[in-house]
């Protein structure tokens, strides 16, 4: 399946991309992270500590064990600092 993967804040800077289209068979977010981290060092560095990373699936906050079935947009970012 094809999905858009978005990166924000230091994840965007570390990976060097704001978004990309990814073709993947990953079943869960964790599987997708493993695929991305295996690609290149910059991805591995960005995903080295998942405690510092949050994920949203189709603009809803989610978790790393969530299923990617039917998901069109995955976003990775650090803990939010609004307000």
């Amino acid at each position, binding site marked *: 399946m094809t999905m858009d993967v*978005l990166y*924000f*804040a*230091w994840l*965007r800077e570390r990976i060097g991309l704001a978004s990309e289209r990814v073709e993947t068979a990953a079943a869960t977010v964790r599987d997708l992270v493993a695929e991305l981290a295996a690609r290149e060092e910059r991805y591995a560095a960005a995903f080295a500590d998942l405690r510092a990373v949050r994920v*949203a699936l189709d*603009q*809803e*906050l989610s978790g790393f064990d969530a299923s990617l079935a039917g998901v069109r*947009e995955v*976003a990775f*970012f*650090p*803990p*939010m*600092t*609004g*307000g």
Partner: protein
Amino acid sequence: MSARVQQERFDPGAELARFTAAVAGAGAVVSFTGVVRDVDPGLVAMEIEHYPAMTAPAIEAMIARAVARFGLAGAEVVHRHGRLGPGEVIMMVLTAAPHRQAAFQGAEFLMDWLKSRAPFWKKEITRDGAAWVAAKDDDEDALARW
């Protein structure tokens, strides 16, 4: 009930006056204004990044929860993104209720949720360089009380 996410500056006094008129009869109106604070060794700018497709819907969901939970007569959030200078207004929360306790609590609830669940990321640019603002454990703890 609305969430506005914008790059442009806004006037907190004008927002408060407009909101107060719109909720006429509510009895209590509370507003909170967040301002870019200076930091050592001197802030040059604060850059606020956000997730455009998610930000307003996420804040609107928080507003709906606050309205239902505290029986608010109205609630609004205005939040800026982009590059801001020291002393510039970042954001504002406005709540209205029949009595002050609900209006205060609604505003605090919205602030606590905005801090760590609205998709904004702040970067401080000082004379020493630029650094992403780290989320505080306190902000996460603040959610536990709700």
